[in-house]
């Protein structure tokens, strides 16, 4: 009896963010009379939030190491501006231009990482400087004006959908197939994980609960892809996003690099005395953030089909909020990629839902602020109780 309640509590804590997401989604689904989860709107939701989610994935690594990055919005804008110069003014091949832009992002990350990791200047200050610096440089590069339009092929990153090789007319068959495949892989992983835990006599939940979870996974993934399939199918950006989330989750959970990132944030001195190259890790995390900020800037530019001086404004705050809503600790050492993504979705669903309801930006901001505070407070109070 005792163990069941403790197990429930543990599971509840882990999934409290998922529950919050579900509740908020349901709330807006009702408030918007079902508009929120219409195929068109779900597609929109993904397109609108992809760049924040990508930033959140980079940001959660930064925050786990105990730092922060305020410059990502400006960096995204700056890289967007450079991409416009390359692709529109110089008519460079979009693929080559994209590679160059990501490299620029890496360089910017290296620049900031150098000051933070090797010189020891607090990240707050370095990236605050970066925020001003790269916003300024964006204006310089664009000479204060927007540049448009991008080549068709580049726009596809944000606005394109997976082609359907199976020639479905009303429904996008490839999307359905991908949905089934992904859900089966997820279920396979769950079963493998549970068997492993059983083998080592870990405490596992009851069988019934586990099967219910498997059914839920199957249902959710397939409903999701089915709904998208009835519109235009899976957006390209969703594929990119999915790949990023899977890759970073794997790295953070399963690899030595991931372990080192957590160790640096958990106790810098102990990590360094255990042979973790703490400076390199910190440096690497900022380089990574630079690359993801660049990617985010490219996606945003492709979606707007223009590079503008105001691009990426306040992105950093949305990304940081997503990470904290997703359960990361401001003191470092704690946080997950999936949590950050869920946090980002919470913010995204709220933005989208409130826009549909016709709420002004003023109220949207105020409400988002309160939700951030409430989510983190809930998490902390929850932790204290156990």
């Amino acid at each position, binding site marked *: 009896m005792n163990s069941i309640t403790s197990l429930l509590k543990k599971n509840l804590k882990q999934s409290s963010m998922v529950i919050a997401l579900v509740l908020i989604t349901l709330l807006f689904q009702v408030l918007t009379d079902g508009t929120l989860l219409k195929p068109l709107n779900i597609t929109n939701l993904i397109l609108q939030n992809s760049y924040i989610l990508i930033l959140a994935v980079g940001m959660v690594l930064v925050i786990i190491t105990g730092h922060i990055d305020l410059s990502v919005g400006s960096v995204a804008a700056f890289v967007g501006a450079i991409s416009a110069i390359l692709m529109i003014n110089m008519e460079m091949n979009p693929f080559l231009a994209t590679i160059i832009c990501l490299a620029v992002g890496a360089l910017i990350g290296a620049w900031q990482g150098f000051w933070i990791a090797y010189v020891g200047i607090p990240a707050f200050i370095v990236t605050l400087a970066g925020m001003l610096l790269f916003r300024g440089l964006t204006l310089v590069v664009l000479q204060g004006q927007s540049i448009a339009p991008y080549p068709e092929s580049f726009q596809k990153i944000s606005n394109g959908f997976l082609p359907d090789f199976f020639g479905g007319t009303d429904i996008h068959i490839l999307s359905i197939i991908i949905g089934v495949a992904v859900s089966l892989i997820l279920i396979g992983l769950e079963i493998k994980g549970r068997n492993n835990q059983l083998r*080592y006599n870990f405490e596992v939940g009851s069988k019934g609960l586990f099967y219910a979870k498997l059914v839920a996974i199957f249902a959710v993934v397939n409903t999701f892809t089915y709904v998208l399939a009835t519109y235009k199918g899976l957006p390209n950006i969703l594929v990119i996003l999915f790949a990023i989330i899977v890759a970073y989750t794997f790295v953070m959970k*399963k*690899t*030595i690099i991931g372990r080192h990132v957590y160790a640096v944030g958990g*106790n810098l*001195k102990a990590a*360094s005395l*255990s042979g973790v190259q703490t400076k390199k890790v910190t440096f690497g995390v900022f380089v990574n953030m630079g690359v993801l900020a660049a990617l985010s800037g490219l996606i945003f530019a492709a979606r707007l089909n223009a590079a503008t001086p105001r691009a990426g404004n306040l992105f950093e705050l949305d990304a940081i909020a997503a990470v904290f809503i997703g359960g990361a600790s401001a003191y470092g*050492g704690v946080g997950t990629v999936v949590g950050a993504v869920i946090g980002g979705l919470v913010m995204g669903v709220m933005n989208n839902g409130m826009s549909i309801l016709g709420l002004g930006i003023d109220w949207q901001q105020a409400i988002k602020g309160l939700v951030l505070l409430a989510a983190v407070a809930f998490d902390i109070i929850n932790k204290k109780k156990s």
Partner: protein
Amino acid sequence: MKSESTILEMKSITKEFPGVKALDNVNLKVVEAEIHAICGENGAGKSTLMKVLSGVYPYGTYEGEILFKDQLCEFKDIKQSEDLGIVIIHQELALIPELSIAENIFLGNEQASKGVINWNETISKARELLIKVGLQESPNTLIKDIGVGKQQLVEIAKALSKNVKLLILDEPTAALNENDSENLLNLLMELRTQGMTSIIISHKLNEIKKVANSVTIIRDGQSIETIATADITEDRIINGMVGRSLTNRYPERQPNIGETFFEVKHWNTYHPIQSERQIVKDVNLHIKKGEIVGIAGLMGSGRTELAMSIFGKSYGKKTTGEVYKDGKQLDLSTVSKAIKEGIAYVSEDRKEYGLILMNDIKENISLASLNKIASKNVINDSKEYVVAEEYRTKMNIKTPSVNQTVGNLSGGNQQKVVLSKWMFSEPDLLILDEPTRGIDVGAKYEIYTIMNELASQGKGILVISSELPEIIGMCDRIYVMSEGQITGEVEKANATQEVLMKYMTNSRG
């Protein structure tokens, strides 16, 4: 003499953490104006009991009754227990390094009127308190500029400023050298004559024997017995703690010493910030295969700095000298290189330098040797679990599971996790810095056994310890350091406390 009156009674205290029953029906009775010791193995529940008493774990989170001066107490927080004069000094000191002694003494209890601090009063009262505890320092000195021994006295001054009736000290001498410990204990005895009651937790049984009027033994969360003054002997306490007598403090060993394999030559280290200050001066030492070598010395003699600088220049970058292993010169410029060369260093400060408290046991054990449980950078979780389980059994780490957060373990068990981490790195040279600090007699014996086992496998062991009996009992050869230099080298046969003390206080420079 006044007749004995009970000042504190704790009745059937039970306290559970998820998965652990830390206290199970514990009873404790403390008489006014006595020094009452609490003894027990690591993880027995001593600290937990004191946290219940002082309101760290508030009323309602435990079962049982607390009677202080015949009054039923239901503390919601520490403030309420302090108001009654119950003050706890925790296992980890809680002073703020960047503030002055006076500011720390009156922290939370500022000498102020209408929110404005009266500095004259603060300083003069602090001065009085410092005289009382026998600390000759200006009240304006910053905490970070005085040693742990003096910091401990500041903690006591702070307690006195709160009008303390019952002072609780959780392992107050664990980090102190012999002189400072002696000072502190004398002070406690002095305060006892003035009518103060104290409860002291310590693993140093000789100290307990010296100061305690009675000893309560806790084993596996249960109060076993209370021993009265006349019966207090070290053997008697050990018997109660472990349930059997321990005939030998140091395990038997047949040293099997091979040839010299590790040499340090002309080693110099400078302070990381004040780069003219030389901390280690021209040290030469060598270690043979299968040999246990000790480094004795007073606090501040440069022992830790020597060890840390050898271990990948972890102490300041300005370090010169040569290190040879098996005749080959080593590049030890980073910790990871040092680990690769088969060196391991177990820090004296496990919380700060040894552990990631928020992570679990298995992640802490694997951290320094992740490549052993990974292939192509991907960690094999099952392997990690198996390894951690193996060390949990081998080292007798008391915890329900290796998934337990290290921060929730008792001090001694945390130390075993750090040791496990470095044993798993399978070093050729294991440097142990105060390896038995805060560890109970039984666990000490276990750790000594492990040291002997490693030595018999042909590994070299370098032990830094402030406890001379330990150094003498365990080591084949002892270096003595004083003011950054090696002032003596003593073979086991000639090692006595007197000889070591002579070298420890002797400066050649």
